């Protein structure tokens, strides 16, 4: 039994993907073994399994989050026919204020009942496995959330016990997680006396104390000063890199998402504007070249356009060009030689998340699965 939330960095690397796929999460298995229990209001149900290991293999290969025509209405549609399969290790939820990020998180946590459609987490459908799904997730809310009259350690321990850990293990992990997030020295202080940054960290501590398989972080850097923000992002990256925990970060701060996430879901007016793998998007997207030339600029620009490039002149003597497929950089040098133009400088400019986001906001094209 593993009780430590923290392990030695020098420990051998995590098991291979094949091993991971073949293994069954013990906590999950244990919860499954407890059989099914139904509740008419909110499900505490555990799936009844006939062939547990086969089913678990299916769950291992299942998307982290799967949305199937998901709609949520509060008087008006807030989430409008969302369909996506997310497989990333750390998924960013981006969107302007009111785009539906928090509503999507709340729906995935089972707080909202979908008007139509389905949502699954790690292969478990929310409508039928809500109780079980909740035993697999950790949630850090956007707003200040705590229980009054408790010390930090008592609060986090209680949260761990509510997630199903025994009292002793919960206390042990609460201590460890406090040190892990950097609040070790403040763990016996009353939560009400914590600063805003400390409250954010204690919210993170309660979200990870039970070692969830999926971690929902809603605006984790809200209200943090630059050092605290950097620390928070560092902790998120460490969790991402050091375990098989998947993370979903909802934020409107592009830098936060860019520094942590490998996949991004961009929401706009309750719809999916874009879902992409950041690295692939950067690589495969249209390639920008930024050139500085000396010579006949007009002729060179005309030549570039003849090659099929889109050209913009943001500054004098600087040319921004988008190279179409099939055109190679050496053709630009050949053109320059032909026109007696010197290319003094040539930079590749890859799409930043900001470019991707702004394009998703501008394009009124709905993402298609």
């Amino acid at each position: 039994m593993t009780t430590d939330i923290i392990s030695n960095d020098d420990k051998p690397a995590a098991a291979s993907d094949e091993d991971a796929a073949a293994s069954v999460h013990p906590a999950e298995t244990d919860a499954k073994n407890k059989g099914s229990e139904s509740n008419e209001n909110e499900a505490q149900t555990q799936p009844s399994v006939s062939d547990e290991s086969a089913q678990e293999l299916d769950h291992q290969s299942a998307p982290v989050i799967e949305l199937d025509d998901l709609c949520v209405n509060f008087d008006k549609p807030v989430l409008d026919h969302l369909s996506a399969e997310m497989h990333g290790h750390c998924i960013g939820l981006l969107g302007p204020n009111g785009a539906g990020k928090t509503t999507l998180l709340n729906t995935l946590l089972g707080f909202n009942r979908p008007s139509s459609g389905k949502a699954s987490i790690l292969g478990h459908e929310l409508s039928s496995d809500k109780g079980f799904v909740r035993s697999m997730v950790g949630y850090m809310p956007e707003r200040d959330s705590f229980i009054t009259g408790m010390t930090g350690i008592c609060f986090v321990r209680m949260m761990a016990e509510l997630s199903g850990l025994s009292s002793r293990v919960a206390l042990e992990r609460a201590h460890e997680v406090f040190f892990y997030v950097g609040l070790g020295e403040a763990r016996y202080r009353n939560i009400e006396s914590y600063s805003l940054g400390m409250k954010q960290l204690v919210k993170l501590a309660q979200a990870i104390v039970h070692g969830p398989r999926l971690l929902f972080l809603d605006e984790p850097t809200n209200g943090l000063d630059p050092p605290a923000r950097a620390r928070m992002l560092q902790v998120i990256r460490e969790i991402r890199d050091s375990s098989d925990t998947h993370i979903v970060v909802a934020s409107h701060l592009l830098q936060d998402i860019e520094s942590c996430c490998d996949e991004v879901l961009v929401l706009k007016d309750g719809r999916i504007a874009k879902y992409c793998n950041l690295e692939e998007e950067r690589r495969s997207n249209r390639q920008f070249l930024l050139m500085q030339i000396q010579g006949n600029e007009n002729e060179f620009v005309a030549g570039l356009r003849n090659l099929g490039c889109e050209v913009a002149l943001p500054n004098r003597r600087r040319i921004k060009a988008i190279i179409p497929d099939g055109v190679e950089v050496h053709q630009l040098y050949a053109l320059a030689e032909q026109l007696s133009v010197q290319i003094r400088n040539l930079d590749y400019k890859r799409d930043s998340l900001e470019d991707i986001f702004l394009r998703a906001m501008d394009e009124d094209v709905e993402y298609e699965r």
Partner: protein
Amino acid sequence: MAIFQKAYQGYSGPLSPPFERTLVIFRYALADVFQSRLFVAFFFISLLLPVLLMCAIYVYHNLELLLQFEVSLDDLTEINGNAFVLAMQIPQNSLLFLMILGIGPTMISPDLRNNAMPLYLSRPINKASYIFGKLLVLIFLGSLISWVPALLLFILQAYLAGDSWLGQNLHLPVASILTSLTWIVSLSLVAFAVSAFVKWKSVARMFFFGIVLLGSILGGVIEEVFGGVGGYVVNLYAALEVLMAALYNADSDVLSFVPQMSVGIAVLQFLIISLLALVLLTRRIRAFQVVS
């Protein structure tokens, strides 16, 4: 090993069964209640009454002591349902009301005020477990100052008085348990409902006090003006008196005033008020607020 050399790792140990999560809420809420010195003082003072009554029962059955005090057996009241209602149940009802007034309205509001519901409900527990966990605190503490000492008194009396007394008064423990639990549960749910709507502790207490007190006054006024039992529908204490009279087989002159209401209606009244409070409570306890 230094803590900074360690890294995050998930948990893969066993998980507790779902019902234990309810007990976690109960345990932490109970600890929170006992942080108040005022409550601790109240709790121990409320245990003095059964101790005194225990001494009284001992003296009642000790002829030597009675002779020393020059008290004749004829001067003493018979220990039966009437005595239990007068000496135990009626004072306990007041103690229970005071206890629930003190801690009931403050049990839910801090969680709502500090946005703690998403933390509870994002875990494998539901609203019912949360409410039941909190309710268990009041049931547990209420039982310790009501039917548990009453049961001990009953056992002592039965031991000292003999089998014939026991045979004649076997209904007393059942009456004590049912009356106390009905009173505790219904008052607690009303207190929780108030707590869910009023964020400030003292205002919530006043509100709860007002609901119970004004209910009694309003019930009396309606009864005076319109007659019948309609007025008692909003008067919880009237329903409790009906229940006590029926369960204890108490004489009509023991209870100051027993409304002309059937036990069924009294039970129905408790059920309706409890269900109403429960519905309000469950509607109020949400993981998030919808702003439309």
